[in-house]
């Protein structure tokens, strides 16, 4: 008995190419996304590029409504990312303000609050509630948070007088002593 087999039609080459391009492209996108996620925040030791923070009226720095990081060379900079909708941010708001009150007269440290994806109305209510007086402004188009690759709020970055990142705090500070412990080495 003879078996007759019908020859299978091969998939055209161009279709194979399209399928492969699609698979490779998809894998590349997934790999890119994963590598970005695993990259985490900017790391201590890295020199921080210049950026501009537009400040809320009433929360200016030395009468300036816009501040560049490069303008603050020679001073230690504490950058705090926060939002009014963020409950953990409330845990450290009073401590941050207390630390600012302590360091402000010395003029060696600058605190910058970067308000992440927030509405100005709610941000003002929050700042008033916690009596915040240090410079604060919105992260317009999320450009600053994207540069720092923040994973959430609150996050605080400590930059030394030369503009090099020295410490990253993920999550809220519990005690003002913890904030001091990060600022003091920057002043030496």
């Amino acid at each position, binding site marked *: 008995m003879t078996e007759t087999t019908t020859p299978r039609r091969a998939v055209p080459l161009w279709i194979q190419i399209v399928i492969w*391009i699609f698979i490779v*492209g998809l894998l590349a996108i997934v790999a890119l996304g994963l590598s970005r996620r695993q990259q985490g925040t900017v790391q201590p030791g890295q020199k921080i590029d210049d950026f501009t923070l537009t400040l809320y009226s009433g929360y200016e720095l030395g009468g300036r409504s816009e501040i560049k990081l490069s303008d603050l060379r020679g001073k230690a900079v504490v950058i705090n990312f926060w939002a009014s*909708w963020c409950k953990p941010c409330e845990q450290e708001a009073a401590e941050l303000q207390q630390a600012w009150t302590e360091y402000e007269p010395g003029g060696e440290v600058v605190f910058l609050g970067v308000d992440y*994806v927030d*509405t100005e*109305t*709610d941000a003002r209510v929050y700042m008033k509630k916690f009596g915040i007086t240090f410079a604060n402004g919105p992260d317009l188009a999320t450009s600053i948070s994207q540069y720092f690759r923040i994973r959430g709020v609150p996050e605080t970055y400590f930059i030394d007088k030369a503009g090099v990142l020295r410490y990253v705090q993920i999550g809220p500070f519990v005690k003002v002593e913890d904030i001091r412990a990060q600022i003091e080495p920057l002043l030496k």
Partner: protein
Amino acid sequence: MKVSTMLNKIRNTKYAVLATILLLFVTLLAFNSVSAQGPEPTDDEVNKIAKKLYCPVCENTPLDVCPTEACRQWREQIREMLIEGKSEQEIIDYFAATYGERASGDPRDKVKAYLIPIVGILLGAGLLVSALRTWRKPKAAEAIIPAKDAGDVHQDEYIARIEAELKKRD
């Protein structure tokens, strides 16, 4: 008092009442027209715009269905902007400018968003095609040898090996 004087007084009072009613009517109209400029938008009107925006905290969650506090604040902002008389496009543009493109589902810079990936895919396709052509060339060269001759070559090698083995035994 004369009858004519009394009639005049009544007529004047009538005009005064008519004038008062007219004034009230005009005032009411004016009041209505002022309040009509900024009516309180309904939730549906707010959500119609919120649907086109995305939560800043949760990835890929439209603003109209997101339960987070951040999204509630954003929806409230949309409501305030609608009261101010801002159009849908103005509101979306504001959110994209203030919170970044990811807040809006529609990228501002369409060249960057669409053209660059297409160019990248085309370049990748070009590389793949050229690589496939390179891999196929040796096969094409092999195919030039007729199958019969190829068989002969294998046969000759086989016979040669048998002869060599037989010689060893001798």
